[in-house]
């Protein structure tokens, strides 16, 4: 079947073969490979996207059930060659090591800051508790985002 949905503000359509996940659809059908495929059971957060305003693991969304939805992926964070503030914060804080988990952290952090521009350190930890960094590079990630939380996004 062909499904239509809005991805990063653009109307997109693609073929869904079966019961595949939104993650597979994004990566293989729409060539949006920023969302990473690791655990396929919602444990690692590296496939995090925003669907209809909710932060979810795209590996746990059935692609066929995403028809008509609005999806934000890591590719939609930067605007006109300018990185999203959370991406800048991850860079500045040294929050990127091997980089595999970074897209998921960036989407989860962007979702947090879209609802609360000045989250507390605990809020940040809580919001990122579904994302795992196997390099254990949490210190840099948290420091970068805590700095971002302390200033105006304007």
């Amino acid at each position, binding site marked *: 079947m062909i499904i239509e949905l809005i991805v990063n503000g653009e109307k997109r359509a693609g073929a869904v073969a079966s019961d595949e996940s939104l993650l597979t659809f994004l990566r293989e059908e729409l060539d949006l490979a920023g969302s990473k495929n690791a655990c396929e059971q*919602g444990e690692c*957060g590296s496939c995090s996207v925003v669907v209809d305003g*909710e932060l979810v693991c795209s590996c*746990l969304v*059935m692609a066929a*059930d995403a028809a008509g939805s609005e999806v934000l992926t890591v590719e939609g964070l930067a605007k006109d060659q300018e990185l999203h503030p959370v991406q800048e914060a991850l860079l500045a804080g040294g929050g990127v090591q091997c980089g595999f988990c970074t897209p998921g952290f960036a989407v989860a952090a962007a979702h947090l800051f879209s609802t609360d521009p000045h989250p507390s350190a605990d809020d940040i930890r809580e919001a990122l508790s*579904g994302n795992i960094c196997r390099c254990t590079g949490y210190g840099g990630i948290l420091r970068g985002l805590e700095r971002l939380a302390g200033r105006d996004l304007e």
Partner: protein
Amino acid sequence: MEIARPTRLREATEAMAEWPDGLPLAGGTDLMVEINFGHRHPAKVVALRRVGELKEAAAERIGAGVSWRRLEAGPHPALAQIARTVGSPQIRSAGTIGGNLGTASPAGDGLTFVAAANGSVELVSSAGTRSLHWDEFLIGVKRNARRPDEVIAAVTFPSPVPTTQAFAKVGTRNAMVIATVSCCVIRHDGGKFAIALGSVAPTVMRATQAEAYINQESRPSNGAMSELQQIVSQEVRPIDDHRATAAYRRHAAGVLARRLVEGLL
């Protein structure tokens, strides 16, 4: 694969009636794991997340499609605490209380609240609506009494649930782990305790012997609390698995139940 994406409950039940082999899909947090690992490939899916009626939430009737994220805000303190510790933010946004019922896991944290609050499960089909007490609905490990044409519509409570509630669970970390033992205690009107436990039997269970014991005591002594702990440890029916031994679960179940009851005295 075929999929129906109803927006009204009536359309959902029509789809279920038309497709007796149709698999209901709520938040996907359990079903998609089975699909991703190749354990299941449904031919027909009825996706329920757009059905407005399932998302209605009131204190005495919670729609099956209400997410953990919404339940974190109340109105039931123990259920809110359960919701806060389900999975991760991503899981809580997608996962629903109806999904917990549908999966019917012995480790379903939300089910301990339903059991302690004497909840019932509302099942709707084209033929009508029926209500099953939680104990009749949960019939075994990951087995429930939903008929193939029925949609789990809501969980209902027989009377206002008192706010004297508490929940605790034991696990290896806060986010993303399935509980080794979970326990929900509600002190009902007249001071009667309901003690529900998860991960210690084929379904969530009520510690009825322990309840009968403690509910005779108007002002339980320290000795009575020790006795309560013992009875809980004896009446649970846990197994050894990769998360814990049965012996540890017996011990932890008694400790949790005692601690929660003491906190509500």
